[in-house]
């Protein structure tokens, strides 16, 4: 166990992040000024002029539990034998692998994807999907020698789900921080959304740290739409006294500042729910078929929300979706390696992401939407007999029309237990940091290089703040 490395013991917010830095954004924070409650007029939605200027959306797909990406990207040629020997009963059969030939980054070697990733494989071949190799939380670049010596500064609690999830979502492993990098991006850019009435950060998968910002709070929806207030009727067609009472209670003014503050939130919730529901009803039906899986339903709702972006007044949006169950300590495979728990998960991932990409082309925003995976960690290269255990660095996928796909980015680790990239049992020491991965996404999204340290304060410690997968 190594020790956390703290830079500034007296800081509760990371160095470089100060209220002043966000001053211009905070003053115009959406939903944060005391808006007088107004009934949202449907006619205003229809009459709203289409927004000029570009639109961009980031979609984070978080794989909770730690994805065994060693079976996502597999060496297919002469190195397959070593893979099979190391992974034993976890190894996928050579013939089952979906061959891919990266235009760069493959090191001249032969590669294949997991057999369930059929849709993503074809998107890789269309150069819409990129693979970023061996990404993980780092405090600073570290070599195996430094790791073994115990002298390196490392993210605290490696191999702990909750800690590593936080490090992935905050992008700041060596300091106590409350905000996520997605929240910090939103804080910086939300003014692009002008007077949009709903948060630019939307979560389809509940509370998450990724979208926590200082000014912008995440708005959580279910894949059926906004949560909605039960036992509440928003219309005027028939008389529902409790609903009338609620509206009157929230329309009333309060002298006490706390009462007014709570009332503001509730009133906004009523307005946003009404507006979102109305706007979603005006959304054209999506032609693209989505698989009826949990992730499929989440991404379908994301597509629908993107389709009403003008009604919502959005030019920048950050979405958060998630799939759980990736902690395949046991039951990772069953029968053949192409089936089993991990295979089912990848099947769901492949179907949902592929459909989502198709939907973005249907909506004409394929180049404006970039999806990316993230996960607590990878898993051990070696098998534990029934599955794999917590790892560290893992490969991730970036998908979208703006992606310079069909390539590998970063550096595939030497796939050898006890090799130069191994911290033990095939837990790869990351060769690309979460910081660099996130910075590349943030820059495409619109964060300038001067503002980048506000989003990722440690970015200066790493060599490649722009990995290049977004042109």
């Amino acid at each position, binding site marked *: 166990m190594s020790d956390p490395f703290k830079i500034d*013991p007296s800081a509760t917010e990371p160095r470089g992040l100060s209220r002043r830095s966000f001053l211009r954004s905070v003053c115009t924070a959406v939903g944060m000024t005391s808006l007088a409650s107004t009934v949202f007029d449907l006619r205003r939605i229809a009459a709203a002029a289409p927004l000029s200027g570009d639109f961009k959306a980031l979609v984070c797909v978080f794989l909770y539990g730690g994805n065994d990406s060693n079976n996502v990207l597999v060496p297919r040629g002469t190195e397959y034998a070593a893979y099979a020997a190391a992974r034993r009963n976890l190894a996928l059969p050579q013939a089952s692998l979906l061959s891919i030939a990266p235009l760069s980054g493959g090191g001249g070697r032969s590669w294949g994807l997991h057999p369930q990733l059929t849709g993503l494989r074809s998107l890789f071949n269309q150069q819409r999907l990129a693979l970023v190799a061996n990404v993980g939380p780092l405090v600073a670049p570290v070599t195996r020698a430094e790791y073994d010596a115990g002298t390196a500064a490392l993210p605290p609690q490696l191999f702990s789900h909750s800690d590593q999830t936080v490090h992935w979502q905050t992008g700041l492993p060596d300091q106590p921080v409350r905000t996520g990098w997605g929240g910090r991006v939103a804080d910086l850019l939300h003014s692009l959304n002008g007077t949009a009435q709903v948060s630019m950060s939307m979560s389809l998968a*509940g509370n998450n740290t990724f979208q926590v910002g200082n000014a912008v709070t995440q708005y959580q929806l279910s894949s059926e739409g906004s949560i909605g207030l039960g036992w509440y009727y928003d219309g005027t067609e028939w008389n529902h006294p409790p609903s009338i009472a609620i509206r009157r209670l929230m329309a009333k003014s309060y002298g006490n500042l706390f009462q007014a503050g709570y009332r503001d*939130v509730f009133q906004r919730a009523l307005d946003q729910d009404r507006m979102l529901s109305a706007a979603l009803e005006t959304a054209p039906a999506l032609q693209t078929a989505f698989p009826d899986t949990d992730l499929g339903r989440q991404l379908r709702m994301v597509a629908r929300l993107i389709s009403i972006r003008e009604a919502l007044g959005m030019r920048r949006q950050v979405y958060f979706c998630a799939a759980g169950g990736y902690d395949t300590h046991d039951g990772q495979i069953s029968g053949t390696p192409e089936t089993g728990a991990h295979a089912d998960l990848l099947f769901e991932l492949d179907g949902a992401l592929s459909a989502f990409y198709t939907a973005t082309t249907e909506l004409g925003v394929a180049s404006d939407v970039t999806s990316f995976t993230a996960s607590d960690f990878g898993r051990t290269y070696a098998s534990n007999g029934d599955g794999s255990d917590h790892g560290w660095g893992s490969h991730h996928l970036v998908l979208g029309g703006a992606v310079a796909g069909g390539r590998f980015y970063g550096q595939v680790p030497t796939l050898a237990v006890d090799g130069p990239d191994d911290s033990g049992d095939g837990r790869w020491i990351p060769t690309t940091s979460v910081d660099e991965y996130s910075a590349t996404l943030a820059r495409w999204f619109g964060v300038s290089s001067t503002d980048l340290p506000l989003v990722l304060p440690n970015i200066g410690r790493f060599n490649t703040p722009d990995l290049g997968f977004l042109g």
Partner: protein
Amino acid sequence: MTAKGLRATGARWWLLGLVPFLWAAPAQAAGTDFYTASPCRLLDTRGTAGPLGGPNLAAGASRPFAVGGRCGVSTAAVAVAVNVTVVPTSSGNLTFGPSGSPKPLASTINFRPDVVRANNAILTLGAAGGVTVYSGTTAEVGVIVDVFGYFADGDTEATQVAPPAFNPPPGSYSGEQSIEMVTSTPGATIRYTTDGSTPSAANGTAYSGPVTLTGTTNLRAIAIKSGLANSPVALGTYTISLQDILLIATLTPQSGAVSLGTGRATLLLAADEQTAVLRYTFSNLSTTMTGAHIHAPDGQIIFDLDDATPEADGSMTWTIVAAGSWTRPQILAALRAGQCYLNLHTVNYPNGEIKGFFRIANGSITFTPPAAPPPLPSGPPTANDAARFLTQATYGPTPEAITALQSQGFPAWITAQLSLPLTSHLAYVDGLPVPEDDRYSWYAREAIWKQAIQGQDQLRQRTALALSELFVTSSEDCDLSWAESNAAYMDLLNRDAFGNFRTLLQDVTLSPSMGVYLDMLSNDKEDPETGRNPNENYAREILQLFTIGLYKLHPDGTLQLDVDGLPIATYGQEEIKGFAQVFTGWTFAGQDRSEEWRFYWPEPDWRQPMEVWTEHHSTGAKQLLNGVVLPAGQTPQADLTAALDNIFQHANVGPFVCRHLIQRLVTSNPSPGYVYRCGQSFANNGQGVRGDMKAVLRTILLDWEARSTDVLNQQGYGKVREPIVRFVNLLRALKAQPPADGRFRYYWQASAEWGLNQAPLQAPTVFNFFEPTYSQPGAIADAGIVAPELQITNETSVFGTANFLRGVLEGYADDDTEVTLNYTYLTSAGSTSVVLDRVNLLFYSGGMSTETRTILADALNDPDFPTEPVERALTLVWLVSLSPEFVVQR
């Protein structure tokens, strides 16, 4: 005119009314010449403080003051002719004597009280040119000494005047300087220039007193005496760099204002005195601010903030110009004298609610205890008073508890609560018909809910919850996802809630749950070979989050400021390292010591305090707070005791912990007075004991700020009830009964979409569910107040909570079980008016507004409102649970 001294050529005793001083014969006798000087003040004790100024001479005191070289008195002078004036407050006398010699027997001037008197005197100078005045009075006396001439040896050998000397000597100075020029040649005059030209008898300014330099100057001077050659030109280069001056004002309520408000302002006066930069913060005013001005001593406005535009960073630039009848120099003088003040005016207090005088920051820590609050009215509590008290001290009032409390009174209620027995969460979990391997953390929550809903020891329940949000551990950490670890931790807080804080600190430190959560468990001493150091996580959080915080506090919880107006850090990296070294060598109790690796891979024991392995404890010296260093080689237990004592004794602990407890129980923005009174009871419970939680809780709940109804209408008073507390409020009010097995199965409240966005021992991070300093942007932030609980109140959670509570009110619990709620108190009311009275008492502590009452009454009276009695009551309570006036307690 220079008067020749009395020379051997003859006596001119008529000069100056002196006693004739006759030389008997010429030639041989040595004497002094007398030289006049421009009348000049040597000493004035009524003036600004300083060696040649104030304060007045105290009774029986003495004060030396310099004479030679000042006011044009030659350094060669042996005596001076002076006028001494006294401003006495009692009768007495003053004696003057040469500094360095015994006090003379003869007094110089005698006086009666309150009559200003003056006397001439000739004062002999001490060897270094000083004189000492001795007070022979019984009270302070003002002393003024003016010189108009001096006696010095004439040097008949000299042919040239000695050059002038400068005091202070040439060099670099920050801030303007007053330069005295003096020559050792008696009777010489000095002329000087600052424009670079050469002074002479015809050029330059005649020196008549100290010259003020406000910028870099080449000072040139010569001394002239007729009959002698002019002195060489003396050149002194003074490099003067002017500095900005920082003034600080602490804003406190004006007398007569019932205000919880507080504030602080800094004013940075530019070196050239043309502008000043103002920054100010304020918090918790009674009503909206209507104006802010800086006032001259007589109340005239000299800077109107309302007309000024703030800079991008929030500061305001004051261009200092004449205002009203005040000239610029007068304003500047008053400012420097600490006589100008910032006044914040509000709706309730148009003449000003809080104000503070700007004083030059000099780095000294000045603290004035806040004024005591007015007395509380006497008499038994009303029903509303009792309901309000129970809202603060329990998980919520019931009709019976309100009535009982009215007869018992608050102090007796507290006393009774403090001695109630406690109930074990561990015993509850152990007794569950659930396999051990499946006893996950939600079963511990089940135990907590049961005590919260049905426990008699309500004050302990609320206190333990508050402590769990200070000393945070969370089942969100996968290693703490076992009910056993959570239940053991909650038992610890229950046990120590009414004990001493020092005990609590020790028990939490050695709690295995805390050890796992913040990495103290199996924390190993440093390894010089690899360079690995002990884990600092617990060391950092125990200081930053649990006990003292980042900055030094006054006893009232306000920040101490240094000479630059900045807060002062309580610790640095060295202290963190020191504490981290203290917290080494501890792991789960009961390990087999013969297996060395057990220190790193222990068998969990969540129920016992951690035990130490001495060989894993750091043995070096350890830096602690306030400069304390633990010597090397102490036992781990001795180190731990000393370290926890060191923290416990820090002056911050009282105000820090008090503020947290007040925020959890009573109000989010306690006034400095409230924090001070609580902190004082922490420091000393009245019997000389520090850290007595009983005393602290008593103070918090019985304080004016918790009990007075005068604060109810302050716009920033009160707090948003935590979702956990709101939830149990409803269950207690409706006498919730679990199913036959006695279990309240509420498991999944941490979700925002489907729950409360909060659940006991399930904080997302060690920073708790919300931060003590969270301020909702908008009117709350503008008012300078905090609203921690609003940090977990968002558009999703308000609906999630509303939906969840509806299910609760209908009797639903998890695992398809039912909880029975009793709506009789409302269904038996008989009329809309009575039911709303009861709702007002039970849920609003009497604070329901007429508008809210009307809204609810209209709903009840609407024919389309549910008619079935229980459904009516349930729907009404649901509406109440959403209403802002219930969500916020005051």
